[in-house]
């Protein structure tokens, strides 16, 4: 589904990603973990070109993303993204947040978009909030709306950048539950997270980044039981 070859990213003189290569298969759920500042967000944001790679290639379904600046909008439509701080549109109702992109970008008839949006809101358990403005929702509710908003575009891949890090502890579960059911439905997902339990349970593979290098790439059972690198061991000792 997604192929990443020798990905480099430099901010000024700061080389944040130092040649990362990996693949994410159809229906695969990949957890990206690593210490803060290791380049996880940058890695994720390169996949949909929110950051422009300095070097290397990214292929989405065999199309090269990196060289197709003009087609990037077409590709982004197929890649949903969920941010740590939600970034809902505060001047629109929940329903409008969900229908905005399908109507504006995909020219979907408004009515059809609304029906689909209500379906999605039901899926994330917020069918009674469609007329609410984001400012009146709790963090957990906001993040569920954000997930629904991304899903409204019918993406083939979903990227999550620490979706629960900004939430109060009691709201983490409701968001993780939505993500879990999404994973079970067969969605291809890349998730940057500090929720090790969730990664262990839901992910098919774990990518461990440190200092801009992909240090380990393993199935969760193996990774969490006996990480190969010292760096991963040190990291796990701290977070577990």
């Amino acid at each position, binding site marked *: 589904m997604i192929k990443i070859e020798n990905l480099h990213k430099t901010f000024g003189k700061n080389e944040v990603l130092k040649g990362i290569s990996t693949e994410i298969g159809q229906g695969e759920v990949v957890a990206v973990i690593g210490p803060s500042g290791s380049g996880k967000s940058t890695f994720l944001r390169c996949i949909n070109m929110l950051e422009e790679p300095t070097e290397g290639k990214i292929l989405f379904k065999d199309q090269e993303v990196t060289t197709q600046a003009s087609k990037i909008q*077409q590709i982004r439509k197929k890649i949903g993204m969920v941010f740590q701080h939600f970034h809902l549109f505060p001047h629109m109702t929940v329903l409008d947040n969900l229908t*905005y992109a399908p109507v504006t*970008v995909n020219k979907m008839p408004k009515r059809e978009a609304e029906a689909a949006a209500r379906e999605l809101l039901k899926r994330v358990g917020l069918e009674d909030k469609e007329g609410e403005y984001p400012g009146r929702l709790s963090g957990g509710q906001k993040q569920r709306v954000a997930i629904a*908003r*991304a899903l409204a575009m019918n993406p083939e891949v979903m990227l999550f950048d620490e979706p629960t890090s900004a939430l109060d502890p009691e709201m983490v579960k409701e968001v993780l539950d939505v993500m879990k059911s999404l994973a079970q439905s067969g969605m291809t997902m890349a998730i940057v997270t500090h929720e090790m339990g969730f990664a262990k349970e839901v992910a098919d593979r774990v990518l461990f980044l440190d200092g801009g290098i992909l240090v380990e790439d393993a199935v969760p059972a193996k990774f969490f039981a006996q990480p190969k690198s010292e760096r991963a061991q040190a990291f796990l000792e701290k977070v577990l």
Partner: protein
Amino acid sequence: MFKKTHVLLTLVLLVIFSLAGNVLPGQHQAAAKEKHNKTLVMGTSADYAPYEYIDTAKGNKIIGFDVDVARHIADKLGYNLVIKDMDFNGLVPALDAKRVDFVMAGMTPNAERKKKVDFSNTYYKAKQLIVTNDPKIKKIEDLKGKAIGVQLGSIQEKEAKKIADKVDNVTIEKRNKVPDLVQEIMSKRFNAAVIEDGVAIEYLNKNPDLSSFVIPGSASAGSAVAFQKGSDLTEKFNKEIAAMKKNGELDQYAKKWFEPKTEKKAEKKSIVDFSTIMPSIPYILKGILTTLKFVVVSILLGFVLGTILALFKISKVNVLRWGADAYTSIFRGTPLILQLLIIYNATPQLTGYKIEPFLAGVLTFGLNSAAYVSEIIRAGINGVDKGQREASMALGVSYGSMMRQIILPQALKNILPALMNEFITLTKESAIIAVIGTTDIMRRAQIVGADTYRYFEPLITAGIIYYLMVMALTVLGRMLERRMSRGD
């Protein structure tokens, strides 16, 4: 929600275009009847009674000695007469720019003017008077150490200079208009003014405090009609003037307008008396529409242009950024009135296009306001959370849609108070378009002042109108703010 704003926008635009449609052609005054199929445009400055002025209690027609003579001649020559009112100082430039075919404004031919325009023979000879409210000033020598006022660029200015050569310590003060001179005398800022007899008569009639005497040996160059250099109208007018002098018609008009009307000899009026300008208030009120149209069109132009400039300022293209910054710098760094006069007077000179006062005003204010609005909007856009942009991009939303529907609406909410401030400033500043003769509230108040010889009342009336308009804008702003903060 988007639909609603679109409908609203369409409505507003519709209203503006329909308004703009009927206001664009300045303030022409058509001839009484369209008798002939050719038209002559006369330029004048309708605040110089009894030569030309507006009897604001009765309507907005320009009347006076010059108007009668002009109409008589135009009729004889087979033309309809159209009168364009403007500032006296704008008359010669207007001839230059071919905005008008001839100028009659009690204008005396002097060497300076003759360099630029041709004059007819004089049709009326005036004497120059010293007008004063100081009973001790009875002859030229009494002016020692006094301040005397004259109309800027007039023949009286020369006369005053001659007096200053003869008498010690005379200061000469210049004003744009004769009514201003009288007002300055009344408020004791000047001790006296040099005013032509025909003009002074009206003031002397209405104002028992004023006295006058003829300046001995004063130049009586007389009023003449001004034309473009080389115009074939000059000869035609000369022939008609000669004929009117011969058959006494000219004298009759002079009698009609210049003879003192004794029954008017007024009793002393109270200091503030709104009843004298009551009949003229509707005339001032009509200016609201002009000012409103002007303000609305200018605000919209400024807003649209300002938004575009703001987008340039945040763009990655250097040329656009520099261009927009330079634009802002220039429009913020020079006086608004200078910009107005450049656009109004220099456009015809440079391009030959005779830009109408309303259009020139709207352009100036729109362009000027855009500079300020663009700064406000830029700050607003920068104030919107970066995440909004990223979320839109991640959804595949185009730059245009993102700006229009995601970023700008949020920016607008934050900058609404600043924008409202800018609109209020524009509304008040709009009063300066009076200088190019647009009959807005301000200009109408000035015309009423010139007609009734009272200044406090019409100016206060104008002040109240402006204040109410600003208050209405303020309330509108608060309502909008409340509406926009629904989501919080």
